[in-house]
């Protein structure tokens, strides 16, 4: 570890989801802001333990869905009624009923794009570089270990206090991660 490297945060390892959950509750109550729990799967109840609010992905899906439906209806109206009307079997040139199935599919299509891209945008992904990805022990976070990292950028971060807190919560291998 070179001395010139800037630290990213303090990382502690936990063996079980219950320990990580318990530690997260304590860290939340201390008022930390820039920290996260890393786990191989979503731990049930962790959002509440961390004090996270309901995810905003739904708004992206909603906007995508409304756009899809409107686009479908307008497209069919424009093509079949406005730009090049062709009479087929005496049916109306535009009817919301026959235009519904394609518009319905477009609602779902753009809603689904909204969900995926909304998730990626809110998570600031893709991000192929991250200090944690360089840390050899962190590879276990996708295997069977749980990590809590409190970032140095947190206003309440005091290295000694945080180290003591993480150790007292049962965190093992508490160490500094270089940026």
């Amino acid at each position: 570890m070179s001395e010139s490297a800037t630290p990213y945060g303090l990382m502690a390892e936990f063996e079980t989801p219950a320990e990580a959950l318990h530690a997260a509750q304590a860290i939340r109550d201390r008022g930390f802001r820039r920290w996260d729990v890393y786990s191989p799967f979503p731990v049930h109840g962790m959002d509440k333990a961390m004090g996270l609010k309901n995810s905003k992905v739904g708004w992206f899906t909603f906007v995508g869905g409304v756009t899809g439906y409107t686009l479908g209806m307008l497209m069919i109206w424009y093509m079949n009624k406005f730009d090049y009307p062709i009479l087929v079997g005496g049916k109306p040139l535009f009817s919301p009923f026959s235009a519904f199935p394609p518009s319905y599919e477009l609602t779902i299509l753009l809603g689904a794009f909204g969900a995926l891209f909304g998730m990626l945008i809110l998570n600031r992904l893709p991000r192929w570089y991250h200090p944690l990805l360089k840390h050899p022990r962190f590879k276990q976070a996708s295997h069977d270990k749980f990590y809590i990292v409190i970032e140095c950028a947190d206003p309440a971060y005091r290295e000694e206090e945080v180290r003591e807190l993480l150790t007292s919560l049962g965190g093992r291998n508490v160490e500094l991660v270089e940026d």
Partner: protein
Amino acid sequence: MAEVVVNGVKMMAPPKELEREPLVANQRSLGWLSDAVAAIAERPTPKWWWWGFGISVTLMLTCFAMILYLMSTGVGVWGLGHPVMWGWAIVNFVWWIGIGHAGTLISAILFLLRQRWRTAVNRAAEAMTIFAVMCAGIFPVIHVGRIWFAWWLFPIPNANGIWPQFRSPLMWDVFAVSTYFTVSLLFWYMGLIPDLAVMRDRAKTKLRKFLYGFFSLGWLGANRHWSNYEKAYLLLAGLSTPLVLSVHSIVSLDFSVSQLPGWHTTIFPPYFVAGAVFSGFGMVLTLLIPLRKMCGLEDVITPRHIDLMCKVTLATGTIVGYSYAMEVFIAWYGGNPYERFAFWNRAFGPYWWSYWIMISCNVIFPQLFWFRKVRRNLAVVWVLSILVNVGMWFERFVIVVTSLNREFLPANWGYYVPTWVDILTYAGTFGLFFTFFLLFLRFLPVVAIAEVKGVTPQADPHHPLGGADRVPHGPEAGH
């Protein structure tokens, strides 16, 4: 209650009658799940894989050769002719697209219904969906005759200044199938992101590190990310559910909006959806029973999973049987002589054999799934699952061909026989399907690792195996 010790953790066992078969057998640990699933893509390529891949690629190339022959010569190379103008191409299209439906049912509908067992099978079933829709998509494109104009199906401005005609169900179909493919792919890819991160963290070679790293988008498993991820997953499941129901409904409208006796029935949309899910589960069973053996996943895809899938097959198969009965009843009760004749012709006309293959494979044989002994006998289940696939192919054959072969004027009656080109094109799509499926087995995690981990007792923070005994029970311990 008796006390048991699992992996060094003491806990109380439930009374005997409340005990359930665990989703992951043999109390496998979280780490074991990563190792077992990732190993399939990491170990040296087994011999059976090369054999399977070789055969599949040969078949796939046969399919392409047949399409080339069709394009260069014309649709006359198929057995189509008056009065049967829709033949195997449409039968195969409906059959393949129906197979896809089980994957979406498992990934979306069972997720909304909180069926935790779905986690062991959803990845492979979703892959099956995507590859089946690819096979399906070939047929409507090549059956249009002048394939080089197939792009007219899409609302793209062209030199004639004419747009697609959206009052036709065939146009709805274009939107339904292409949306289905795209959304299934998105859903599958999003599910793969955390597992690709598992593969990235285990990768040894530079190329693997780069590729898995690139496609996992820098996933860290942060809980702030999981929170958005789970919401997006729920939304995609919520969107895929009406989607999958609409896709086969719209496929059925291709038939039922026409005025042909045998096609013009209101029962078609729900009947097609039930049949699709039925055939799809047949295919999932056909694929997963050998796969769990060959990939050493017996502890992840357990006999309980097979048992549950047999029950879904039984339920949907029975709905299909009910639909057949209702169709026949309405044909008689409706009093339309043409409709009555169409159904008489189905069961006792020149294609009587196809009708009775359909009835026995779809309605009679699946009734064996009522018996637990049958559901637990994997060899029998496998054979029955293939019969389901056969039966559902014949269902589409019956619907398409027997409704057309004897139309209103007896002077126009005819007997349709497929040519060798029809047969080889269909056989070739299996090559396409298995080429992709084998590549999937070789390079991607076949089981949703993160999701299966999430349904183990070790993942539950309120279970002794999840460490619940190791933390003090403060006022918030219940959260």
